[in-house]
C-alpha cells in the first residue's frame, strides 16, 4: 500500500456546515499537503505542513483551515462549507527531498448541497 489513507472517501454535506477531512500516513514523512482537484484547474494547493504544528497557506486557502497535532495526521476543515468547495480533495506526503516526488492518497469526493 502507499502508506497514506484519506477518510472519508465520499461525503455529502449541506451548505454552512463544518466538515473535516482526515489524512493519515504511516511513512513518518515530514511534509503533508492538501490539494483540491477541479476540471480545468488541475491540482491547487490548499495548505501544507512541514512538521507537527507547522503549517502554511497554499494558493486557495480561503475557507479552509488545517491542523497537525502529530506526524501521522493532517486534518483539513471546511469551516462553513459552500457549493464552491464541492471538489475532490487529495492529500499528499513527501519526505522532504523534492526529487522523489509526492505520494498521493486516494482522494475524498466532497459534495456540498
Amino acid at each position, binding site marked *: 500500500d*502507499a502508506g497514506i489513507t484519506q477518510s472519508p472517501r465520499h461525503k455529502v454535506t449541506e451548505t454552512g456546515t463544518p466538515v473535516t477531512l482526515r489524512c493519515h500516513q504511516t511513512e513518518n514523512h515530514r*511534509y503533508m*499537503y492538501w*490539494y483540491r482537484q477541479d476540471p*480545468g*484547474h*488541475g*491540482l*491547487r*494547493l490548499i495548505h*501544507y505542513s*512541514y512538521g507537527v504544528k507547522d503549517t502554511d497557506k*497554499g494558493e486557495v486557502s480561503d475557507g479552509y483551515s488545517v491542523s497537525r497535532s502529530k506526524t501521522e495526521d493532517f486534518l483539513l476543515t471546511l469551516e462553513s462549507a459552500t457549493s464552491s468547495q464541492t471538489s475532490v480533495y*487529495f492529500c*499528499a506526503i*513527501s519526505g*522532504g527531498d*523534492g*526529487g*522523489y*516526488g*509526492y*505520494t*498521493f*492518497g*486516494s*482522494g475524498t469526493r466532497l459534495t456540498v448541497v
Partner: protein
Amino acid sequence: AQRVTQPEKLLSVFKGAPVELKCNYSYSGSPELFWYVQYSRQRLQLLLRHISRESIKGFTADLNKGETSFHLKKPFAQEEDSAMYYCALSGSGNQFYFGTGTSLTVIP
C-alpha cells in the same frame, strides 16, 4: 514565479500511434520536473521524474532547459494509456506546482 503549462486539455490518438503530451514551465532556478498519471477515479501516481532519466511503461520525457519544456512521449500508444496526465515542478519550500492536466484518450 513558478508556473507549469499544459496547453492541451484533451488529446486523442489512435492505438499504435506516437503520442506527445506537452509541458512548459517557468522557474528561476534549476527545476525538478515530474509527470504524474491518474487513471479513472484513482489516485495520482508518479510516472516519471527527470532526474532519474528512466522510461516507465514506454514513456520518456526529456528536460529541455532552452525551451523550458518537459514533454512526455511514447512511440506507440496503447489503450491502457488512456488517463489524465499532470506535469509538475518541484520548487522552493518542497512545494509542487501542477499543470492543469491533459486527458489522453487512445482510440482502439
